[in-house]
Protein backbone atom coordinates (compact mmCIF):
# COMPACT_ATOMS: atom_id res chain seq x y z
CA UNK A 1 0.00 0.00 0.00
CA UNK A 2 2.89 2.29 0.88
CA UNK A 3 4.34 1.64 -2.55
CA UNK A 4 1.07 2.26 -4.36
CA UNK A 5 0.71 5.56 -2.53
CA UNK A 6 4.23 6.56 -3.47
CA UNK A 7 3.61 5.80 -7.13
CA UNK A 8 0.36 7.75 -6.94
CA UNK A 9 2.35 10.66 -5.54
CA UNK A 10 4.72 10.50 -8.52
CA UNK A 11 1.74 10.47 -10.87
CA UNK A 12 0.36 13.50 -9.05
CA UNK A 13 3.70 15.28 -9.35
CA UNK A 14 3.76 14.54 -13.08
CA UNK A 15 0.27 16.00 -13.44
CA UNK A 16 1.29 19.13 -11.53
CA UNK A 17 4.17 19.60 -13.95
CA UNK A 18 2.07 18.96 -17.04
CA UNK A 19 -0.53 21.35 -15.68
CA UNK A 20 1.97 24.15 -15.22
CA UNK A 21 3.31 23.49 -18.72
CA UNK A 22 -0.15 24.03 -20.18
CA UNK A 23 -0.67 27.12 -18.06
CA UNK A 24 1.97 28.85 -20.15
CA UNK A 25 -0.32 29.31 -23.16
CA UNK A 26 -3.74 30.95 -23.13
CA UNK A 27 -5.43 28.24 -25.20
CA UNK A 28 -4.34 25.41 -22.92
CA UNK A 29 -4.22 27.30 -19.62
CA UNK A 30 -7.62 26.25 -18.35
CA UNK A 31 -7.05 22.57 -19.06
CA UNK A 32 -3.69 22.93 -17.34
CA UNK A 33 -5.40 24.09 -14.19
CA UNK A 34 -7.78 21.14 -14.40
CA UNK A 35 -4.94 18.69 -14.90
CA UNK A 36 -3.13 20.01 -11.84
CA UNK A 37 -6.36 19.71 -9.87
CA UNK A 38 -6.70 16.08 -10.93
CA UNK A 39 -3.16 15.49 -9.72
CA UNK A 40 -4.17 16.99 -6.39
CA UNK A 41 -7.15 14.66 -6.07
CA UNK A 42 -4.92 11.66 -6.80
CA UNK A 43 -2.43 12.75 -4.14
CA UNK A 44 -5.17 13.24 -1.57
CA UNK A 45 -6.92 9.94 -2.26
CA UNK A 46 -3.60 8.09 -2.19
CA UNK A 47 -2.92 9.60 1.23
CA UNK A 48 -6.14 8.15 2.62
CA UNK A 49 -4.62 4.67 2.27
CA UNK A 50 -1.65 5.37 4.52
CA UNK A 51 -3.40 6.92 7.55
CA UNK A 52 -5.37 5.47 10.43
CA UNK A 53 -8.94 4.89 9.53
CA UNK A 54 -10.65 6.17 12.67
CA UNK A 55 -9.21 9.63 12.02
CA UNK A 56 -11.14 9.91 8.78
CA UNK A 57 -14.19 11.53 10.37
CA UNK A 58 -12.17 14.36 11.83
CA UNK A 59 -10.22 14.83 8.61
CA UNK A 60 -13.38 14.70 6.57
CA UNK A 61 -15.02 17.34 8.74
CA UNK A 62 -12.07 19.72 8.52
CA UNK A 63 -11.66 19.14 4.79
CA UNK A 64 -15.34 19.64 4.14
CA UNK A 65 -15.29 22.88 6.07
CA UNK A 66 -12.31 24.08 4.06
CA UNK A 67 -13.91 23.00 0.81
CA UNK A 68 -17.14 24.84 1.50
CA UNK A 69 -15.43 28.04 2.58
CA UNK A 70 -12.99 27.82 -0.34
CA UNK A 71 -15.67 27.15 -2.94
CA UNK A 72 -18.00 29.88 -1.71
CA UNK A 73 -15.29 32.53 -1.41
CA UNK A 74 -13.82 31.62 -4.79
CA UNK A 75 -17.23 31.69 -6.43
CA UNK A 76 -18.36 34.93 -4.81
CA UNK A 77 -15.23 37.06 -5.09
CA UNK A 78 -15.40 39.93 -7.58
CA UNK A 79 -12.80 39.85 -10.34
CA UNK A 80 -11.33 43.09 -9.01
CA UNK A 81 -10.77 41.39 -5.66
CA UNK A 82 -8.90 38.40 -7.09
CA UNK A 83 -5.45 39.38 -5.83
CA UNK A 84 -6.41 39.56 -2.19
CA UNK A 85 -8.33 36.31 -2.53
CA UNK A 86 -5.22 34.59 -3.83
CA UNK A 87 -3.29 36.19 -0.98
CA UNK A 88 -5.74 34.72 1.51
CA UNK A 89 -5.54 31.20 0.09
CA UNK A 90 -1.79 31.48 0.01
CA UNK A 91 -1.68 32.63 3.61
CA UNK A 92 -3.66 29.71 4.96
CA UNK A 93 -1.38 27.37 3.02
CA UNK A 94 1.62 28.83 4.81
CA UNK A 95 -0.27 28.61 8.09
CA UNK A 96 -0.99 24.94 7.51
CA UNK A 97 2.72 24.26 6.95
CA UNK A 98 3.61 26.02 10.19
CA UNK A 99 0.97 24.10 12.15
CA UNK A 100 2.14 20.77 10.73
CA UNK A 101 5.69 21.58 11.78
CA UNK A 102 4.46 22.49 15.25
CA UNK A 103 2.74 19.19 15.85
CA UNK A 104 5.72 17.31 14.41
CA UNK A 105 7.85 19.17 16.91
CA UNK A 106 5.57 17.93 19.65
CA UNK A 107 5.97 14.36 18.38
CA UNK A 108 9.73 14.72 18.32
CA UNK A 109 9.68 15.96 21.93
CA UNK A 110 7.46 13.17 23.17
CA UNK A 111 8.53 10.19 21.10
CA UNK A 112 11.81 8.42 21.77
CA UNK A 113 13.14 7.97 18.24
CA UNK A 114 15.11 10.97 17.00
CA UNK A 115 15.20 12.35 13.47
CA UNK A 116 17.96 14.85 12.82
CA UNK A 117 16.38 15.98 9.57
CA UNK A 118 13.02 16.69 11.20
CA UNK A 119 14.69 18.46 14.10
CA UNK A 120 16.41 20.80 11.68
CA UNK A 121 13.54 21.38 9.27
CA UNK A 122 10.83 21.94 11.90
CA UNK A 123 11.96 25.41 12.99
CA UNK A 124 12.63 26.28 9.35
CA UNK A 125 9.11 25.33 8.35
CA UNK A 126 7.60 27.25 11.26
CA UNK A 127 9.61 30.31 10.22
CA UNK A 128 8.79 30.33 6.52
CA UNK A 129 5.21 29.20 6.99
CA UNK A 130 4.40 31.82 9.61
CA UNK A 131 6.03 34.62 7.63
CA UNK A 132 3.97 33.88 4.57
CA UNK A 133 0.85 33.42 6.68
CA UNK A 134 1.18 36.78 8.41
CA UNK A 135 2.46 38.51 5.30
CA UNK A 136 -0.41 37.26 3.17
CA UNK A 137 -2.99 38.30 5.72
CA UNK A 138 -1.53 41.82 5.77
CA UNK A 139 -1.54 41.87 1.98
CA UNK A 140 -5.17 40.81 2.09
CA UNK A 141 -6.21 43.50 4.55
CA UNK A 142 -4.32 46.11 2.56
CA UNK A 143 -5.94 45.26 -0.76
CA UNK A 144 -9.36 44.91 0.85
CA UNK A 145 -8.63 48.38 2.25
CA UNK A 146 -9.50 46.99 5.69
CA UNK A 147 -6.36 48.49 7.18
CA UNK A 148 -2.76 49.63 6.63
CA UNK A 149 -3.69 50.90 3.19
CA UNK A 150 -0.88 52.66 1.45
CA UNK A 151 2.67 52.25 2.71
CA UNK A 152 2.98 52.22 6.50
CA UNK A 153 6.54 52.84 7.55
CA UNK A 154 8.39 53.57 10.77
CA UNK A 155 11.98 54.58 11.48
CA UNK A 156 14.77 51.98 11.24
CA UNK A 157 12.35 49.49 9.72
CA UNK A 158 15.09 47.54 7.94
CA UNK A 159 17.23 47.43 11.07
CA UNK A 160 14.35 46.13 13.18
CA UNK A 161 13.51 43.46 10.62
CA UNK A 162 17.16 42.46 10.40
CA UNK A 163 17.51 42.12 14.17
CA UNK A 164 14.26 40.22 14.48
CA UNK A 165 15.41 37.81 11.78
CA UNK A 166 18.71 37.19 13.56
CA UNK A 167 16.92 36.56 16.84
CA UNK A 168 14.70 34.01 15.12
CA UNK A 169 17.73 32.26 13.64
CA UNK A 170 19.39 32.07 17.05
CA UNK A 171 16.21 30.65 18.53
CA UNK A 172 16.10 28.11 15.70
CA UNK A 173 19.69 27.06 16.44
CA UNK A 174 18.73 26.76 20.06
CA UNK A 175 15.74 24.57 19.26
CA UNK A 176 17.79 22.36 16.94
CA UNK A 177 20.65 21.94 19.43
CA UNK A 178 18.21 20.99 22.20
CA UNK A 179 18.64 24.28 24.06
CA UNK A 180 22.43 24.23 24.20
CA UNK A 181 22.74 27.69 22.64
CA UNK A 182 20.56 29.57 25.11
CA UNK A 183 20.43 27.23 28.12
CA UNK A 184 17.80 29.38 29.80
CA UNK A 185 15.32 28.86 26.94
CA UNK A 186 13.86 25.38 26.40
CA UNK A 187 13.48 24.08 22.82
CA UNK A 188 9.71 24.22 23.19
CA UNK A 189 9.87 27.80 24.37
CA UNK A 190 12.15 28.74 21.48
CA UNK A 191 9.88 27.15 18.90
CA UNK A 192 6.97 29.07 20.38
CA UNK A 193 9.10 32.21 20.22
CA UNK A 194 10.03 31.45 16.61
CA UNK A 195 6.34 31.19 15.79
CA UNK A 196 5.52 34.55 17.33
CA UNK A 197 8.63 36.22 15.99
CA UNK A 198 7.99 34.97 12.46
CA UNK A 199 4.42 36.20 12.53
CA UNK A 200 5.63 39.63 13.56
CA UNK A 201 8.34 39.51 10.90
CA UNK A 202 5.77 38.68 8.26
CA UNK A 203 3.70 41.69 9.28
CA UNK A 204 6.67 44.04 9.37
CA UNK A 205 7.91 42.91 5.98
CA UNK A 206 4.66 43.57 4.15
CA UNK A 207 3.26 46.58 6.02
CA UNK A 208 5.54 49.18 4.40
CA UNK A 209 4.79 48.00 0.88
CA UNK A 210 2.29 50.02 -1.12
CA UNK A 211 -0.65 48.38 -2.81
CA UNK A 212 0.86 48.92 -6.23
CA UNK A 213 3.45 46.27 -5.48
CA UNK A 214 1.08 43.90 -3.74
CA UNK A 215 0.69 41.47 -6.65
CA UNK A 216 4.44 41.05 -6.69
CA UNK A 217 4.58 40.58 -2.95
CA UNK A 218 1.77 38.04 -3.13
CA UNK A 219 3.66 36.16 -5.81
CA UNK A 220 6.73 36.21 -3.59
CA UNK A 221 4.76 34.95 -0.59
CA UNK A 222 3.35 32.29 -2.90
CA UNK A 223 6.88 31.09 -3.55
CA UNK A 224 7.55 31.17 0.21
CA UNK A 225 4.56 28.96 0.93
CA UNK A 226 5.88 26.59 -1.70
CA UNK A 227 9.16 26.41 0.17
CA UNK A 228 7.32 25.92 3.45
CA UNK A 229 5.43 23.01 1.93
CA UNK A 230 8.72 21.51 0.66
CA UNK A 231 10.29 21.95 4.10
CA UNK A 232 7.35 20.23 5.78
CA UNK A 233 7.88 17.51 3.20
CA UNK A 234 11.31 16.96 4.72
CA UNK A 235 9.78 16.98 8.18
CA UNK A 236 7.34 14.24 7.19
CA UNK A 237 9.62 12.55 4.66
CA UNK A 238 6.85 12.98 2.10
CA UNK A 239 7.81 13.20 -1.58
CA UNK A 240 4.74 14.87 -3.01
CA UNK A 241 5.15 17.70 -0.52
CA UNK A 242 8.81 18.04 -1.45
CA UNK A 243 8.24 17.94 -5.20
CA UNK A 244 5.10 20.05 -5.31
CA UNK A 245 6.44 22.56 -2.82
CA UNK A 246 9.81 22.91 -4.51
CA UNK A 247 8.36 23.36 -7.96
CA UNK A 248 6.03 26.08 -6.71
CA UNK A 249 8.85 27.66 -4.77
CA UNK A 250 11.12 27.80 -7.78
CA UNK A 251 8.59 28.73 -10.44
CA UNK A 252 7.03 31.25 -8.04
CA UNK A 253 10.39 32.97 -7.74
CA UNK A 254 10.76 33.27 -11.49
CA UNK A 255 7.18 34.47 -11.83
CA UNK A 256 7.84 37.14 -9.21
CA UNK A 257 10.74 38.39 -11.28
CA UNK A 258 8.62 38.48 -14.43
CA UNK A 259 5.97 40.50 -12.63
CA UNK A 260 8.33 43.01 -11.07
CA UNK A 261 9.81 43.36 -14.55
CA UNK A 262 6.38 44.22 -15.90
CA UNK A 263 5.75 46.71 -13.13
CA UNK A 264 9.18 48.16 -13.82
CA UNK A 265 10.19 47.88 -10.18
CA UNK A 266 13.26 45.84 -9.15
CA UNK A 267 12.34 43.33 -6.46
CA UNK A 268 14.97 44.58 -4.00
CA UNK A 269 13.62 48.11 -4.25
CA UNK A 270 10.12 46.89 -3.48
CA UNK A 271 11.04 44.84 -0.44
CA UNK A 272 13.71 47.00 1.12
CA UNK A 273 12.58 50.48 0.20
CA UNK A 274 8.82 50.12 0.27
CA UNK A 275 8.86 52.91 -2.30
CA UNK A 276 5.51 51.92 -3.61
CA UNK A 277 2.69 54.35 -4.21
CA UNK A 278 1.23 55.80 -1.05
CA UNK A 279 -1.56 57.49 -2.94
CA UNK A 280 -1.11 60.31 -0.44
CA UNK A 281 1.04 62.68 -2.49
CA UNK A 282 -1.25 65.33 -3.99
CA UNK A 283 -0.23 68.31 -6.08
CA UNK A 284 -1.91 71.38 -4.59
CA UNK A 285 -1.80 73.78 -7.53
CA UNK A 286 -4.01 71.39 -9.50
CA UNK A 287 -7.23 73.40 -9.33
CA UNK A 288 -5.52 76.63 -10.45
CA UNK A 289 -4.30 75.20 -13.74
CA UNK A 290 -6.65 75.26 -16.68
CA UNK A 291 -7.71 72.17 -18.62
CA UNK A 292 -9.68 71.56 -21.80
CA UNK A 293 -12.96 70.42 -20.21
CA UNK A 294 -14.74 68.66 -23.07
CA UNK A 295 -18.35 67.46 -23.27
CA UNK A 296 -19.38 64.00 -24.42
CA UNK A 297 -20.77 65.68 -27.55
CA UNK A 298 -17.44 67.27 -28.46
CA UNK A 299 -15.65 63.98 -27.91
CA UNK A 300 -18.24 61.96 -29.81
CA UNK A 301 -18.23 64.49 -32.63
CA UNK A 302 -14.47 64.40 -32.96
CA UNK A 303 -14.42 60.60 -32.99
CA UNK A 304 -17.21 60.36 -35.55
CA UNK A 305 -15.96 63.05 -37.91
CA UNK A 306 -12.18 63.26 -37.65
CA UNK A 307 -10.92 59.96 -36.21
CA UNK A 308 -10.01 56.99 -38.41
CA UNK A 309 -7.84 54.98 -36.02
CA UNK A 310 -8.69 54.95 -32.33
CA UNK A 311 -6.71 53.36 -29.49
CA UNK A 312 -8.55 52.80 -26.23
CA UNK A 313 -6.54 52.52 -23.01
CA UNK A 314 -8.48 51.06 -20.09
CA UNK A 315 -7.37 51.45 -16.50
CA UNK A 316 -8.37 50.74 -12.95
CA UNK A 317 -11.26 53.19 -13.19
CA UNK A 318 -12.89 51.01 -15.81
CA UNK A 319 -12.94 48.15 -13.34
CA UNK A 320 -14.30 50.35 -10.56
CA UNK A 321 -17.07 51.68 -12.78
CA UNK A 322 -17.69 48.19 -14.24
CA UNK A 323 -17.71 49.95 -17.61
CA UNK A 324 -16.29 47.14 -19.73
CA UNK A 325 -19.69 46.58 -21.37
CA UNK A 326 -20.09 50.19 -22.59
CA UNK A 327 -16.45 50.08 -23.71
CA UNK A 328 -17.25 47.14 -25.99
CA UNK A 329 -20.31 49.03 -27.26
CA UNK A 330 -18.13 52.03 -28.09
CA UNK A 331 -15.80 49.76 -30.03
CA UNK A 332 -18.71 48.36 -32.00
CA UNK A 333 -20.22 51.80 -32.61
CA UNK A 334 -16.91 53.09 -33.99
CA UNK A 335 -16.29 49.99 -36.07
CA UNK A 336 -19.78 50.26 -37.56
CA UNK A 337 -18.55 53.58 -38.91
CA UNK A 338 -15.59 51.75 -40.46
CA UNK A 339 -13.02 52.98 -37.97
CA UNK A 340 -10.12 50.92 -36.67
CA UNK A 341 -10.24 50.34 -32.91
CA UNK A 342 -7.39 48.87 -30.88
CA UNK A 343 -6.96 48.40 -27.14
CA UNK A 344 -3.67 49.18 -25.43
CA UNK A 345 -3.27 47.04 -22.33
CA UNK A 346 -0.53 48.05 -19.94
CA UNK A 347 0.87 45.08 -18.01
CA UNK A 348 -0.05 46.74 -14.72
CA UNK A 349 -3.22 48.50 -15.75
CA UNK A 350 -5.82 47.89 -13.09
CA UNK A 351 -4.85 46.22 -9.85
CA UNK A 352 -3.44 42.92 -10.94
CA UNK A 353 -1.38 41.76 -13.93
CA UNK A 354 -3.74 40.67 -16.65
CA UNK A 355 -6.57 42.47 -14.85
CA UNK A 356 -7.70 44.35 -17.95
CA UNK A 357 -7.44 41.31 -20.22
CA UNK A 358 -9.69 39.46 -17.81
CA UNK A 359 -12.28 42.23 -17.75
CA UNK A 360 -12.32 42.89 -21.48
CA UNK A 361 -12.40 39.27 -22.59
CA UNK A 362 -15.19 38.90 -20.02
CA UNK A 363 -17.42 41.05 -22.22
CA UNK A 364 -16.24 39.38 -25.41
CA UNK A 365 -13.76 41.88 -26.80
CA UNK A 366 -11.60 39.64 -29.01
CA UNK A 367 -8.02 38.89 -28.02
CA UNK A 368 -6.79 40.08 -31.38
CA UNK A 369 -7.64 43.67 -30.44
CA UNK A 370 -5.77 43.60 -27.13
CA UNK A 371 -2.22 44.85 -27.65
CA UNK A 372 0.68 44.56 -25.24
CA UNK A 373 2.82 47.53 -24.28
CA UNK A 374 5.47 46.79 -26.92
CA UNK A 375 2.90 46.12 -29.62
CA UNK A 376 0.70 49.14 -29.08
CA UNK A 377 3.26 51.92 -28.62
CA UNK A 378 4.20 51.98 -32.32
CA UNK A 379 0.50 52.25 -33.16
CA UNK A 380 -0.02 55.61 -31.43
CA UNK A 381 1.92 57.61 -34.07
CA UNK A 382 -0.81 57.29 -36.68
CA UNK A 383 -3.72 57.08 -34.23
CA UNK A 384 -6.15 60.00 -34.43
CA UNK A 385 -7.35 59.56 -30.90
CA UNK A 386 -6.28 57.79 -27.73
CA UNK A 387 -9.19 57.36 -25.33
CA UNK A 388 -7.99 56.76 -21.77
CA UNK A 389 -10.75 55.38 -19.62
CA UNK A 390 -10.17 55.45 -15.89
CA UNK A 391 -6.42 55.23 -16.20
CA UNK A 392 -3.63 57.54 -15.23
CA UNK A 393 -0.36 55.99 -14.07
CA UNK A 394 0.00 53.72 -17.07
CA UNK A 395 -0.11 56.70 -19.44
CA UNK A 396 1.64 59.21 -17.21
CA UNK A 397 4.67 60.72 -19.01
CA UNK A 398 6.00 61.72 -15.61
CA UNK A 399 7.14 58.10 -15.30
CA UNK A 400 9.76 58.66 -18.00
CA UNK A 401 10.73 62.14 -16.77
CA UNK A 402 14.25 61.85 -15.35
CA UNK A 403 13.71 65.05 -13.32
CA UNK A 404 11.10 63.62 -10.98
CA UNK A 405 11.51 60.71 -8.59
CA UNK A 406 7.98 59.35 -8.42
CA UNK A 407 6.73 55.92 -7.39
CA UNK A 408 6.24 55.13 -11.08
CA UNK A 409 9.57 56.49 -12.28
CA UNK A 410 11.21 54.04 -14.65
CA UNK A 411 7.98 52.19 -15.39
CA UNK A 412 7.45 51.87 -19.15
CA UNK A 413 4.20 53.63 -20.12
CA UNK A 414 1.76 53.68 -23.01
CA UNK A 415 2.85 56.65 -25.10
CA UNK A 416 -0.63 58.06 -25.72
CA UNK A 417 0.81 61.57 -26.11
CA UNK A 418 1.97 60.49 -29.58
CA UNK A 419 -1.64 60.25 -30.77
CA UNK A 420 -3.25 63.23 -32.55
CA UNK A 421 -5.75 63.76 -29.71
CA UNK A 422 -5.77 62.41 -26.17
CA UNK A 423 -9.14 61.92 -24.50
CA UNK A 424 -9.37 61.20 -20.77
CA UNK A 425 -12.59 59.83 -19.34
CA UNK A 426 -12.34 60.12 -15.57
CA UNK A 427 -14.24 61.78 -12.77
CA UNK A 428 -11.75 64.42 -11.72
CA UNK A 429 -8.17 65.58 -11.97
CA UNK A 430 -7.20 63.39 -9.07
CA UNK A 431 -4.19 61.28 -9.95
CA UNK A 432 -4.03 57.55 -9.99
CA UNK A 433 -2.84 54.84 -7.71
CA UNK A 434 0.67 56.19 -7.53
CA UNK A 435 -0.63 59.66 -6.72
CA UNK A 436 1.45 61.28 -9.43
CA UNK A 437 -0.06 64.24 -11.23
CA UNK A 438 -0.29 63.82 -15.00
CA UNK A 439 1.09 66.69 -17.17
CA UNK A 440 -1.06 65.51 -20.06
CA UNK A 441 -4.18 66.72 -18.25
CA UNK A 442 -3.03 70.34 -18.77
CA UNK A 443 -1.98 70.05 -22.43
CA UNK A 444 -5.09 71.97 -23.43
CA UNK A 445 -4.81 71.77 -27.20
CA UNK A 446 -3.95 68.07 -27.38
CA UNK A 447 -6.02 66.74 -24.50
CA UNK A 448 -9.77 66.65 -23.96
CA UNK A 449 -10.83 65.93 -20.38
CA UNK A 450 -14.26 64.32 -20.16
CA UNK A 451 -15.09 64.43 -16.47
CA UNK A 452 -17.51 61.60 -15.77
CA UNK A 453 -17.88 58.20 -14.29
CA UNK A 454 -16.38 55.81 -16.84
CA UNK A 455 -19.67 54.00 -17.48
CA UNK A 456 -21.78 57.12 -17.84
CA UNK A 457 -19.13 58.91 -19.84
CA UNK A 458 -18.74 56.08 -22.32
CA UNK A 459 -22.48 55.77 -22.80
CA UNK A 460 -22.80 59.50 -23.53
CA UNK A 461 -19.92 59.33 -26.00
CA UNK A 462 -21.51 56.35 -27.77
CA UNK A 463 -24.79 58.23 -28.03
CA UNK A 464 -23.21 61.27 -29.60
CA UNK A 465 -21.06 59.11 -31.92
CA UNK A 466 -24.17 57.36 -33.20
CA UNK A 467 -26.17 60.61 -33.47
CA UNK A 468 -23.53 62.40 -35.51
Amino acid at each position, binding site marked *: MQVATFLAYLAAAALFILGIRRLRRPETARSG*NTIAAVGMVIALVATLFVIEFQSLILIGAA*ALLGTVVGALSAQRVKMTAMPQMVAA*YNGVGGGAAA*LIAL*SEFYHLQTSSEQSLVATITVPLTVLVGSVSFAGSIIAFTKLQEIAFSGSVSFPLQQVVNGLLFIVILVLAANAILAGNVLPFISPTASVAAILVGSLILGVLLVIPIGGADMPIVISLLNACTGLAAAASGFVLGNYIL*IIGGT*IVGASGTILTNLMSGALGRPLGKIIFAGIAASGSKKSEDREDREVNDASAETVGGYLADEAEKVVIVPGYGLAVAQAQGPMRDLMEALEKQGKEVLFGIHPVAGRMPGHMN*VLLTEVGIPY*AKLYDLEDINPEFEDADAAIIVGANDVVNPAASDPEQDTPISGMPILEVEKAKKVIFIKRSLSPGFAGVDNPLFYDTDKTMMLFADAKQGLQDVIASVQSS
Partner: protein
Amino acid sequence: MNSFLAELAVLIIAAFLGFELISRVPNLLHTPLMSATNAIHGVILVGGMITLAAATNVYIQAVGFIAVFFGALNVVGGFWVTNRMLGMFRSPTPRVKKRRED
Protein backbone atom coordinates in the same frame (compact mmCIF):
# COMPACT_ATOMS: atom_id res chain seq x y z
CA MET B 1 20.17 9.87 6.58
CA ASN B 2 20.18 8.10 3.22
CA SER B 3 16.50 8.85 2.74
CA PHE B 4 17.30 12.50 3.42
CA LEU B 5 19.97 12.53 0.72
CA ALA B 6 17.51 11.09 -1.77
CA GLU B 7 15.02 13.79 -0.81
CA LEU B 8 17.72 16.39 -1.26
CA ALA B 9 18.40 15.10 -4.75
CA VAL B 10 14.70 15.38 -5.59
CA LEU B 11 14.65 18.89 -4.15
CA ILE B 12 17.52 20.07 -6.33
CA ILE B 13 16.24 18.58 -9.58
CA ALA B 14 12.72 19.80 -8.86
CA ALA B 15 14.06 23.29 -8.19
CA PHE B 16 15.78 23.39 -11.58
CA LEU B 17 12.61 22.09 -13.17
CA GLY B 18 10.58 24.81 -11.49
CA PHE B 19 12.92 27.46 -12.86
CA GLU B 20 12.71 26.02 -16.36
CA LEU B 21 8.94 25.64 -16.31
CA ILE B 22 8.17 29.35 -16.09
CA SER B 23 9.79 31.08 -19.00
CA ARG B 24 8.46 33.85 -21.25
CA VAL B 25 4.88 33.67 -19.99
CA PRO B 26 2.66 36.38 -21.49
CA ASN B 27 1.61 39.06 -18.96
CA LEU B 28 -1.92 37.90 -19.56
CA LEU B 29 -1.14 34.70 -17.68
CA HIS B 30 0.84 36.04 -14.74
CA THR B 31 -2.10 36.13 -12.37
CA PRO B 32 -3.58 32.77 -13.39
CA LEU B 33 -0.17 31.15 -13.09
CA MET B 34 0.38 32.66 -9.67
CA SER B 35 -3.03 31.52 -8.59
CA ALA B 36 -2.64 28.00 -10.01
CA THR B 37 0.77 27.40 -8.42
CA ASN B 38 -0.77 28.81 -5.24
CA ALA B 39 -3.36 26.06 -5.48
CA ILE B 40 -0.66 23.46 -6.09
CA HIS B 41 1.19 24.18 -2.88
CA GLY B 42 -2.15 23.41 -1.27
CA VAL B 43 -0.78 19.88 -1.47
CA ILE B 44 0.29 20.76 2.07
CA LEU B 45 -3.16 19.37 2.81
CA VAL B 46 -1.59 15.93 2.47
CA GLY B 47 0.70 16.84 5.34
CA GLY B 48 -2.24 18.10 7.33
CA MET B 49 -4.10 14.83 6.90
CA ILE B 50 -1.08 12.81 7.99
CA THR B 51 -0.55 15.04 11.02
CA LEU B 52 -4.15 15.00 12.10
CA ALA B 53 -4.30 11.21 11.67
CA ALA B 54 -1.19 10.83 13.82
CA ALA B 55 -2.39 13.25 16.48
CA THR B 56 -2.00 11.74 19.94
CA ASN B 57 -3.88 14.26 22.08
CA VAL B 58 -6.66 16.77 21.67
CA TYR B 59 -4.40 19.81 21.36
CA ILE B 60 -2.48 18.31 18.49
CA GLN B 61 -5.78 17.20 17.03
CA ALA B 62 -6.97 20.79 17.16
CA VAL B 63 -3.80 21.96 15.45
CA GLY B 64 -4.13 19.24 12.83
CA PHE B 65 -7.78 20.08 12.32
CA ILE B 66 -6.94 23.69 11.54
CA ALA B 67 -4.10 22.55 9.28
CA VAL B 68 -6.44 20.34 7.27
CA PHE B 69 -9.03 23.12 7.14
CA PHE B 70 -6.41 25.57 5.92
CA GLY B 71 -5.04 23.10 3.41
CA ALA B 72 -8.45 22.29 1.95
CA LEU B 73 -9.23 26.00 1.76
CA ASN B 74 -5.97 26.58 -0.11
CA VAL B 75 -6.61 23.74 -2.56
CA VAL B 76 -10.27 24.27 -3.32
CA GLY B 77 -10.22 28.04 -3.30
CA GLY B 78 -7.02 28.13 -5.32
CA PHE B 79 -8.08 25.89 -8.17
CA TRP B 80 -11.60 27.27 -8.22
CA VAL B 81 -10.61 30.92 -8.47
CA THR B 82 -7.99 30.09 -11.10
CA ASN B 83 -10.59 28.27 -13.12
CA ARG B 84 -12.88 31.30 -12.91
CA MET B 85 -10.12 33.62 -14.08
CA LEU B 86 -9.22 31.41 -17.01
CA GLY B 87 -12.83 30.86 -17.91
CA MET B 88 -12.87 34.45 -19.07
CA PHE B 89 -10.29 33.99 -21.78
CA ARG B 90 -11.75 33.29 -25.18
CA SER B 91 -9.83 31.02 -27.54
CA PRO B 92 -7.16 33.39 -28.83
CA THR B 93 -6.42 34.52 -32.35
CA PRO B 94 -3.36 33.69 -34.46
CA ARG B 95 -1.89 37.09 -33.71
CA VAL B 96 -1.74 36.45 -30.01
CA LYS B 97 -0.50 32.94 -30.69
CA LYS B 98 2.23 34.25 -32.92
CA ARG B 99 3.29 36.79 -30.38
CA ARG B 100 3.61 34.09 -27.81
CA GLU B 101 5.39 31.45 -29.76
CA ASP B 102 8.19 33.32 -31.46
